[in-house]
């Protein structure tokens, strides 16, 4: 019986030749780790488990993080980085117990390296699994110093610790005053009293005397994370006659804070966020409109002068036209980049080899402001720099350090009814 699918020797020969030629061409054209993988019979792709809180309380930020990873392979193509990663998403639901289970699931599913998980509690839960199973974890965002103080052998962090954030932010304040020629004499610190806020507040109080700041901290006002009204707190802050407001806020309380400042006509010389979220977030900018302008956040940010940032911004804007790319997406992208570079260096998907490569890694071309990505003996990247990001034309814009600035600094902050606010 003959049929269309019957193989003849001739057809077999052609098929074999064609297949071999195709395989050869693929192999030659493939990036080095792929070639190595083919040669060793190892898995062809690096499988990255991305663990983020994409549902639950931190869903909004978790999804912002994920968008940075979603365009990573496209950016690698733009940058001619010879990798294409298989990125598998896992939702931690903003719960440490789920984070732990999902980490086990990711490793069982064959992930060679994990990236995540935005929050310190969830990250530590994942770190324990990675430590026990010998799989590398690249921390994208989590500020608790303990993560790199525990002696973990399989964890690296590409995000500043809370003390690093504060030190960097306060150092930049001096630069802002120097460049603008205006130095406030007094400041008031207002902080949300959740885990992050309290850690930041205590850190600021502890570091303040050591950093020889040009202004005096006249009062510290904390408020509940679930506060629905900040009129009393703002009135109290206004009564101090402080020339500078240092808010440590989240998103919703940042909105309440500014609304109340406008209502009470409190116009300090500036609002300088010493490393917290809130003021630079898309929702804040949309909701506050012109009143959200000229607020400055001292946080790590995307380097506007990096070619890789330009590619990431282009790809992000094309895929997510309604969403702003911020440090959450930026650091998560860098987490994926670190995994890719570790794979390129290790030429293997074995966890031990990847970890060894991570320890020695030095990535000059990346997207966040700062020196090359490399990790110290504890697994901490100490080269991340704080920036001053000012809300200009409804967009967080790097204004300091000067070598990375995309626009000139505006300080002091214009009055609420100033014509520059449009």
């Amino acid at each position: 019986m003959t049929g269309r699918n019957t193989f003849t020797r001739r057809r077999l020969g052609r098929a074999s030749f064609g297949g071999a030629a195709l395989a050869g061409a693929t192999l030659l054209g493939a990036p080095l780790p792929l070639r190595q993988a083919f040669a060793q019979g190892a898995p062809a792709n690096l499988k990255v488990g991305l663990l983020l809180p994409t549902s639950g309380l931190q869903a909004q930020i978790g999804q912002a993080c994920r968008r940075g990873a979603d365009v990573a392979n496209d950016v690698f193509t733009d940058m001619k980085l010879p990798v294409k990663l298989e990125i598998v998403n896992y939702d931690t639901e903003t719960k440490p117990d789920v984070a732990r289970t999902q980490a086990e699931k990711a490793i069982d599913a064959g992930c060679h390296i994990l990236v995540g998980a935005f929050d310190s509690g969830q990250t530590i839960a994942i770190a324990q699994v990675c430590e026990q199973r010998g799989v590398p974890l690249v921390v994208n965002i989590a500020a608790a110093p303990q993560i790199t103080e525990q002696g973990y052998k399989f964890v690296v962090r590409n995000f500043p610790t809370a003390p690093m954030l504060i030190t960097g932010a306060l150092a930049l304040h001096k630069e802002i005053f120097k460049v603008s020629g205006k130095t406030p004499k007094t400041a008031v610190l207002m902080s949300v009293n959740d885990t992050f806020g309290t850690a930041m507040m205590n850190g600021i109080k502890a570091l303040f005397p050591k950093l020889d700041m040009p202004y005096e901290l006249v009062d510290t006002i904390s408020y509940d994370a679930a506060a629905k009204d900040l009129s009393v707190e703002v009135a109290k802050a206004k009564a101090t006659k402080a020339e500078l407001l240092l808010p440590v806020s989240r998103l919703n309380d940042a909105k309440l804070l500014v609304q109340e400042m406008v209502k009470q006509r409190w116009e300090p010389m500036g609002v300088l966020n010493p490393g917290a979220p809130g003021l630079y977030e898309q929702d804040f900018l949309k909701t506050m409109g012109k009143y959200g302008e000229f607020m400055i956040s001292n946080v790590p940010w995307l380097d506007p002068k990096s070619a890789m940032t330009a590619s990431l911004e282009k790809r992000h804007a094309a895929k997510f036209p309604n969403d702003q790319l911020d440090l959450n997406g930026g650091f998560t992208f860098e987490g994926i980049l670190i995994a890719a570079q570790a794979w390129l260096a290790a030429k293997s998907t074995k966890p031990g080899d990847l970890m060894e490569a991570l320890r020695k890694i030095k990535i000059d071309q990346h997207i966040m402001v700062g020196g090359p990505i490399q990790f110290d003996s504890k697994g901490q990247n100490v080269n991340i720099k704080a920036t001053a990001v000012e809300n200009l034309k409804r967009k967080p814009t790097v204004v300091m350090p000067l070598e990375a600035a995309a626009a000139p600094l505006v300080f002091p902050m214009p009055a609420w009814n100033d014509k520059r606010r449009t």
Partner: protein
Amino acid sequence: MSLLARLTDGVPARSLWGLGLLLVLLLVAPALLGKYGLSVLILVLYFAYVGQAWNIMMGFAGQLSLGHALYAGVGGYIAAGLFFHYGIGPWAGVFVAVLAASVAGSIVGYLGFRFSLAGVYFALLTIAFSEFTRIAFDHWGWVGGSGGLFLKVDATVDIPNLRGGPLLFYYVILALAVGAFVVCRVLLESRLGRYWLAIREDPEAAQAVGVPVLRCKMIAVVISAAMTSLAGVWNAFYYNNLFPETAFAMGRSIEFTLAPIIGGLGTLFGPIVGAVVLTGLGEIFTDLSELFHVSGLKQIFYGLALLVIVMYRPAGVWPWLAERLGFAEKRR
């Protein structure tokens, strides 16, 4: 009659065989399951255990507590704090933890029961205590304040200090779950258990026939708080970090109540079946969310599934299941 005979009195042989088989399966489960499966099973046992502890309050004595995270949080923090600051291992620290949680339970219970707070008013009291304890812990430096308390993680197995991998914690939580099951059975079969059921059905009538209502309710809250604090200690050493905003969260208290409510309030197997159903459904919906790439899909389906179970099986899954499997206890 011996204790064993009393415990098994009226239980069909089929149920006893089923129980034995389940125990054997649970003992050998780590060898049969992968690491992920084991981590899921650990969660099932954890929720079964805390559900059993909560069931004593609500299922047996009829007192609605929505602040049980208080006892788990206090227990976990005390044992972890003693270990962190003084190197006192959890096997010793657990006594202090249980004592502290029992005292907390006594205060909540006395205030509620002495002043005849019942139903939602008692529930509000439990929430209030949990909330202000959270605020107090947020500002208590000894436990790390809101910045959290972190235990040193060590990959080596150190049983005296409850340090080790998931296998160690699996057997500890299995022992706790089995222990809780037996304790609850003993309590239910005791005079105290009968008093609790009488109070649950009609406190005024119980009091009228001489049941010491206040004392029985106090015993319920103290036992329940003590058992919950054990779960808190286990949880603290398993996850190695504690934050007030999660340890005392209202959401956590609600989680504790779900397994017994879904499984069957006041039943011994209810919390176990509820934990299996809830965790199993959770994992299935997580997989579906990942399959369809829709974040939050799990929560929607999970909510719908709970709604269906509550609507069509208001007494819980276990009584219905037991009837069909022939596991229902013979009436004496």
